[in-house]
């Protein structure tokens, strides 16, 4: 036997040994994590999944700040039941990092519930992990309609209405109230925007409007050439983007080239300090009470920035923490208990101005969107 065949034989032996170990230990150990009781007398732990770094950090940081804000407020008023929050960085759009972060939280047996993740694709990818260990996850920003198709019932919840509510609301407003018939939709090539664009386009077409589509890359920093080619017979430009500063630049460059179309944007760009177009513009968002004392307190402790994009995560954290607190009344709780408590959540009026009660599939019961007219940074509710 020469050296090479010897080596090959040795390799095969090693592989056989690994396979043997793998097969003999493959007797599936049933997962007890979901029903295991965790002692939580003086306090409990929850998790947060958000894109704290990476290209979408400007979305994740507000979510992180609002979630931390809820926890610190809770800990001030509940001295006997303190909440600890463990954060996982999902680095949107890098889904592999999201699954790693979810695994870290999932394998921490102290964690009873999770606020997040932020993106719809992250929800899809982390579902097997979180469901496998019986964790509930409440998102404040994943709005793809099909997430609540029933395959995640009892585990996945969201405190914001889905695209299927927002898109048609916008479409009906454009056709029925503004009486406009020719709409250009520009998405920004990520899941939130493409999903919302599809829902709005479908409804617009069924209402008899003419729809044209284009898209810009997430990394684009100049829209002037795209704007140059906007046809003069277009009445409304719909930009359901997730980054308010890009929408602001788009608005500025439209004015620079003297384009007079009405600009319509979505909840992703609801940011009075950043997105303040000087032309006629509309925006769809939750009917949030902007003079709410929570918002005022947040602004005071964060240098005047309201970071509205993070408000739904505040509500999501609230839902999780309240469910955990209820489950911990008797000194211990299980993830299953927390899940059933979240399902029974009933908040009369959340920070978003919506009633939080969940359907069996995890959607808000009767969630709706408000339309705001935007004039120089002032957002006035108009419908």
């Amino acid at each position, binding site marked *: 036997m020469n050296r090479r065949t010897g080596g090959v034989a*040795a390799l095969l032996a090693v*592989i056989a040994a690994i396979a043997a170990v793998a097969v003999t230990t493959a007797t599936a150990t049933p997962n007890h994590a979901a029903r295991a009781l965790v002692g939580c007398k003086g306090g409990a732990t929850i998790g947060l999944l958000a894109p704290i770094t990476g290209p979408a950090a400007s979305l994740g940081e507000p979510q992180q700040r609002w979630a931390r804000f809820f926890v610190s407020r809770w800990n001030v008023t509940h001295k006997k039941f303190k909440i600890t929050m463990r954060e996982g960085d999902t680095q949107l*759009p*890098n889904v592999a990092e999201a699954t790693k972060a979810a695994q870290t939280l999932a394998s*921490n047996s102290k964690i009873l519930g999770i606020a997040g993740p932020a993106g719809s694709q992250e929800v899809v990818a982390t579902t097997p992990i979180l469901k496998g260990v019986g964790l509930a996850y409440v998102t404040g920003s994943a709005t793809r309609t099909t997430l609540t198709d029933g395959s995640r019932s009892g585990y996945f919840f969201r405190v914001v209405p889905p695209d299927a509510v927002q898109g048609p609301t916008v479409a009906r407003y454009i056709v029925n109230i503004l009486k406009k018939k020719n709409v250009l939709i520009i998405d920004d090539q990520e899941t939130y925007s493409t999903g919302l664009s599809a829902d709005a386009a479908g409804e617009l077409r069924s209402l008899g409007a003419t729809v044209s589509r284009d898209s810009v890359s997430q990394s684009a920093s100049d829209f002037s050439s795209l704007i140059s080619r906007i046809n003069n017979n277009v009445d409304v430009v719909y930009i359901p983007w997730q980054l308010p500063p890009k929408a602001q630049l788009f608005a500025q460059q439209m004015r620079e080239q003297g384009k007079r179309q009405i600009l319509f944007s979505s909840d992703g760009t609801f940011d009075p300090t950043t997105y303040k177009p000087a032309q006629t513009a509309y925006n769809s968002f939750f009917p949030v009470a902007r003079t709410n004392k929570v918002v005022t307190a947040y602004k005071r402790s964060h240098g005047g920035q309201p970071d509205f994009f993070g408000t739904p995560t505040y509500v999501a954290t609230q839902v999780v923490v309240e469910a955990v607190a209820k489950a911990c009344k008797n000194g211990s709780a299980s993830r299953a208990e927390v899940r059933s408590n979240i399902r029974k959540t009933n908040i009369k009026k959340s920070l978003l101005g919506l009633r939080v009660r969940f359907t069996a599939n995890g959607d808000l019961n009767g969630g709706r969107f408000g339309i705001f007219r935007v004039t120089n940074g002032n957002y006035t509710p108009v419908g």
Partner: protein
Amino acid sequence: MPSDELPSVPAPPDAVDRPRIGVDQWVADVEGREDERSQLRRGFERVPSAGWLAVFVAVASVLPFLLNQGDLFRYGLFTLLYALLALGLNVTVGFAGLLDLGFIAFYGFGAYFYAILASGHFGIHWQAELAIPVIVVGAALLGLILGLPSRRLLGDYLAIVTLFFGQAFVVFVNAANPKGLSGGANGIADVDPINFFGYELTTTKDYYYFSLIVFVLVLGTLYFLSRSRTGRAWRALREDPLAAELMGMPVNRLKIMAFMFGAGIAGLTGTIFAANQTGVFPGDFDVSLLITIYAVMILGGVGSLTGMVIGAIVINVSFEILTPATPDHARWLFYATVVIALAARVRPWQRLLLVLGGTAVFGFVVHAAVQALSPSATDGTVVSGGFLTDVIRGWAIVPKHPGDAAKYAYVGLVVAILLVTRLRGWWRALALIPTLYLVAFVWENLLIDQPAVTRFILFGALLIALMTARPQGLLGTSRVEIV
């Protein structure tokens, strides 16, 4: 893996006394260092590579019994995936010396191809024993196409073309998405688990063992390949393409083969990844992963197979320990690394003792002084960290509202560290004391509050420091480039 050994020629009896004519400074230096190596280290080098492989496999096989599922997923599975990717990249870059910056596209191609062949996306559900060979061949063919320009382009021009190929792949699957092929920004969800003749891999443990088997196979293949005619030809090509061509080597065919091998391994890894993640998304195949894999390869030492494994372990494990979800681990790792780095770099031991002791005393003095001046400057809450918390509370300054002070301190720290690297001898030891205290201050007030950002900053600093200390990587062999 040790390189090919030359048959040893017996030295002349009076070798020591002879003048060393024709031996230049560099060679003499290297030989001197070789002689200085300790007995222990030479002992390590005598262990045959198969022995190391056996040790690695033995340790790796028991990991699932020691780690919980989450840790096995993050530490075990992803280390193997990174190691596999680095092995593939190592063929193109390390063996053949072709700077391929589009490597991740092959990984993405494998993942997407598997997702298309085995999911509800088009309702096709292939078994893995059929899908995997098809994917590996497909990825290798894609490697052939990308390898074609490598026949003409030199070094950096090849780098830019391949880099753009990688970018174009992401644009293609994300934005172009012809006929719904790749699912656009939503990717493809609900991908089937890998299914061999009806035996499904379902748990993380299954995927871990499967990846381990694939890893051993790939490593073994590459080991023999690197010692084969082709492997030697690749190395010749890397060292000097012109000379290789003049020796009659089929340079173009060798280049394309290197691309195909790398691509095939990446495609195979992508398959495992897609099945384990149960979905593929455009964001998975971005440049950040390319940078990570390059870091793995270069940290381990370009061209070394063992190096790829070590690199993957170091990069992935340190990244995961610094995850924001476990701040206690991060603090331990941080202080331990600082102390170990000092112990390794500060000599003699008296000086090390001075630095460590000096820093401790300095801390208590400063803490007491600040407390006397303004009590509110030291009564902030220390982020949780076991028994270390109490020590830190009495030693480091943690103001209630650090505000911008911590940020200025951070900038000051960067400048201070750069200055310390310029000092020598006892001056450096003295300057280290306040610098170390500043490190603790910045860590406790700024970095530990933002662990997610911190790990990237530390990663960046680590890359710079490591390259300065060991440009050839941990296990690479230092080469002199002859101009």
